[in-house]
């Protein structure tokens, strides 16, 4: 720290002002650069909302319709804006409604700062009205959490919360603040935190490991790179591209890694895992060196670990040491931020070509095009397919829009058939697979994107009804969200499993749905339903140029299955095509 900065900090330290705990929270949020937050009011958080009332010019608050919606909106906001998502709720039921979002953010490494009101400190543990042990309940689904019972603890707790949420492998943190601590006054001053003794977000780079990795890569005949969200989180897209281009290594992506590397790049081979693309899955078990960057070998990616890439040397680059050797045993591990690791790796790898190896991906791709992709994207008869709608939108938007999805078949179809040519373009619930994520997430994504980019949300008829009330938020804010409801009248993904593994015993997966367009109209949102192939083109054109929110319901084939597929626990190279 230079001397000038130091004196500034010291000056700040001296100028303390007397404010309430509630005001200290709001001021601390502003200090951390928060200008937008999501939440839902209630008794135990009212003092903070009272302060927010007079800070509306500097800190916008989005009032959602359910706290789960606030979480998913804040998560999406974080993923697109690259700032921590901030979310607030009252005690008890307000706080427990955050739990799904916390679990989702925890698994998908999304930086979140959540603030929950709590009953007065004198009532703690007494089963007071709307008292829940939120610190206890949220512990397994937060990177860190803390209960504030004294106003003086606020500045440091908030500073810690932001530091922990966004540094290292990001994640959600929660501050639970008692009502009396919101009312009490303190001598307020703020200082950011950049160091905690028991927390090393950026471990020292092991240069030995980097050169070992380079050596293995340079000797590889059939290297294969797996890109995960870590590359997006670290902002290492440029370095990643430089690395794979220099060594000419084909790239497979995890679901959350999509858009870290352009889908239209010649080295991009598609998505990994259960409903990923054929070539990257098959060739996972053909490569001689597997280089995993910012991904965690989730079971949806690996299938059966016993048969996963056993022939290959494994290089794993990840910032979280606990991910190393957790699922796949590595030969070389680099525990580092992707950008830092790649910056030191690039000069050590040789410029190379792997023509034949890359061609083997193209050959496999041809098989997938013939057996799957053509049927999904260019059908000429029968009901509309999810794939053709997504593929069309991708073409019409040049693969440059922000795509938000819910969870299910439409999610996999979106990941497969939208071309992510621009970075930071997919917001989806990966690790937790949270139905109901899509609609509220589209709120946060749209607010973060502003008028710079268009947001399209692909949602299934099941998941849509889990958080459908957020149409209210979209309508109130007149958000430019284009919702494409892919309605198959089924909980499609589960129905597919029942079809494939339960002899079509469709237990509770068929839905009697409401008239979605009437519902949207009730919220003041325009909508339209199509069920004929001829209408897709024009309707999408209208959707793209439409200003304001719009619900497009597409009636799609009811019993279509997503292929190819690696059945749960199966071997990636035995992916089935039909």
């Amino acid at each position, binding site marked *: 720290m230079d001397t000038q900065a130091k004196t500034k900090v010291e000056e700040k330290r001296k100028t303390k002002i007397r404010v309430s705990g509630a005001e200290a929270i709001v001021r601390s949020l502003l200090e951390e650069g928060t200008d937008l937050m999501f939440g839902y009011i209630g008794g135990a958080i009212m003092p903070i909302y009272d302060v927010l009332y007079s800070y509306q010019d500097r800190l916008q608050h989005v009032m959602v319709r359910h706290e789960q919606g606030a979480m998913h909106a804040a998560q999406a906001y974080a993923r697109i804006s690259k700032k921590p998502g901030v979310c607030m709720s009252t005690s008890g039921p307000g706080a427990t409604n955050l739990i799904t979002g916390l679990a989702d953010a925890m698994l998908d490494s999304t930086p979140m700062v959540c603030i929950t009101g709590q009953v007065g400190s004198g009532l703690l543990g007494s089963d007071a009205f709307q008292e829940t042990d939120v610190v206890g309940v949220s512990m397994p689904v937060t990177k*860190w959490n803390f209960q504030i019972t004294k106003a003086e603890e606020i500045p440091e707790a908030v500073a810690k919360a932001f530091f922990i949420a966004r540094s290292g492998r990001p994640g959600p943190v929660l501050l639970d603040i008692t009502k009396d601590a919101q009312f009490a006054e303190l001598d307020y001053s703020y200082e950011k935190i950049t160091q905690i003794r*028991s927390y090393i977000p950026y471990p020292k780079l092991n240069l030995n490991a980097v050169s070992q990795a380079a050596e293995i890569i340079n000797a590889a005949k059939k290297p294969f790179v797996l890109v995960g969200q870590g590359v997006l989180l670290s902002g290492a897209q440029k370095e990643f591209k430089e690395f794979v281009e220099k060594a000419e290594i084909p790239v497979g992506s995890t679901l959350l890694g999509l858009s870290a590397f352009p889908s239209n790049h010649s080295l991009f081979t598609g998505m990994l895992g259960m409903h990923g693309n054929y070539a990257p899955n098959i060739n996972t078990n053909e490569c001689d060196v597997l280089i995993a960057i910012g991904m965690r070998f989730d079971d949806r990616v690996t299938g059966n670990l016993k048969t996963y890439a056993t022939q290959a040397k494994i290089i794993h680059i990840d910032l979280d040491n606990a991910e190393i*050797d957790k699922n796949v045993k590595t030969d070389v591990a680099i525990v580092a931020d992707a950008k830092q690791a790649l910056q030191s790796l690039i000069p050590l790898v040789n410029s190379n070509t792997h023509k034949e190896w890359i061609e083997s991906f193209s050959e496999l791709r041809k098989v997938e095009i013939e057996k799957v992709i053509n049927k999904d994207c260019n059908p000429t008869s029968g009901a509309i397919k999810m794939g053709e709608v997504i593929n069309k939108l991708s073409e019409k938007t040049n693969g440059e829009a922000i795509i938000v999805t819910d969870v299910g078949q439409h999610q996999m179809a979106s990941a497969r058939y939208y071309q992510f040519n621009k970075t930071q373009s997919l917001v989806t619930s990966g690790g937790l697979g949270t139905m109901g994520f899509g609609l509220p997430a589209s709120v946060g994504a749209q607010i973060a994107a502003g008028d710079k980019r268009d947001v399209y949300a692909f949602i299934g008829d099941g998941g849509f009804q889990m958080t459908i009330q957020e149409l209210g938020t979209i309508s109130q804010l007149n958000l430019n969200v284009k919702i494409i409801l892919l309605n198959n009248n089924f909980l499609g993904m589960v129905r597919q499993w029942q079809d494939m593994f339960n002899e079509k015993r469709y237990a509770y997966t068929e839905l009697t749905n409401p008239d979605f367009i009437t519902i949207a109209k009730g919220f003041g949102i325009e909508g339209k339903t199509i069920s004929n192939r001829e209408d897709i083109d024009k309707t999408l054109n209208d959707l793209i140029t439409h200003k304001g929110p719009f619900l497009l319901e597409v009636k799609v084939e009811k019993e279509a299955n997503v292929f190819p597929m690696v059945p749960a626990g199966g071997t990636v190279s035995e992916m089935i095509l039909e």
Partner: protein
Amino acid sequence: MEKEFTLSIFTENKIGVLQRITGIFTRRHINIDSMIASESEVKGVYRFTIVVNCSLDLIKKVHKQIEKQIGVLKAFYFTNKEIVYQEIALYKVPTKSFSHGNDVENLIRNHNAHILTVEPDYIIIEKAGHKDETQELFNKLLPYGILQFARSGRVAVSKQIKEITAYLRDLEEASLYSEKELLLNNK
């Protein structure tokens, strides 16, 4: 193959750290055989000693997940050969059991136990040792009547040369490096 491991976990003295640590075992369905905590040789640094039975592969993963918790400074796992450890046992026996000649007194002497308190109705015996040793004395005292028996969790110190103070210095250094990296890249 399952084996007995002793974890020494050094933490800050913060509410919730214990729950975060035990949660890691709960999640992986590992039973904790014994657990004990107290301040270590470093002021403000707490030492948890946890004994579990599991495979080497599993303890390695658990160890990393424990070290990842904020509030945990350093964690180690040891096999029994790598530590010196003890448990303490207290036996409350009726005073009248001492009326069988010198039997009980001999037992106490032979087992390196000693008497803590003598009251008109009961006598309290203390013995430190490994579990099988305190158990053996328990079994031998049983015929004379045992009113209460309590055994502590395991306390253990490691045989390794590098002490926690040195690890804490490493940590300070790592923390400074990390901070530099953070500020440098404006993370």
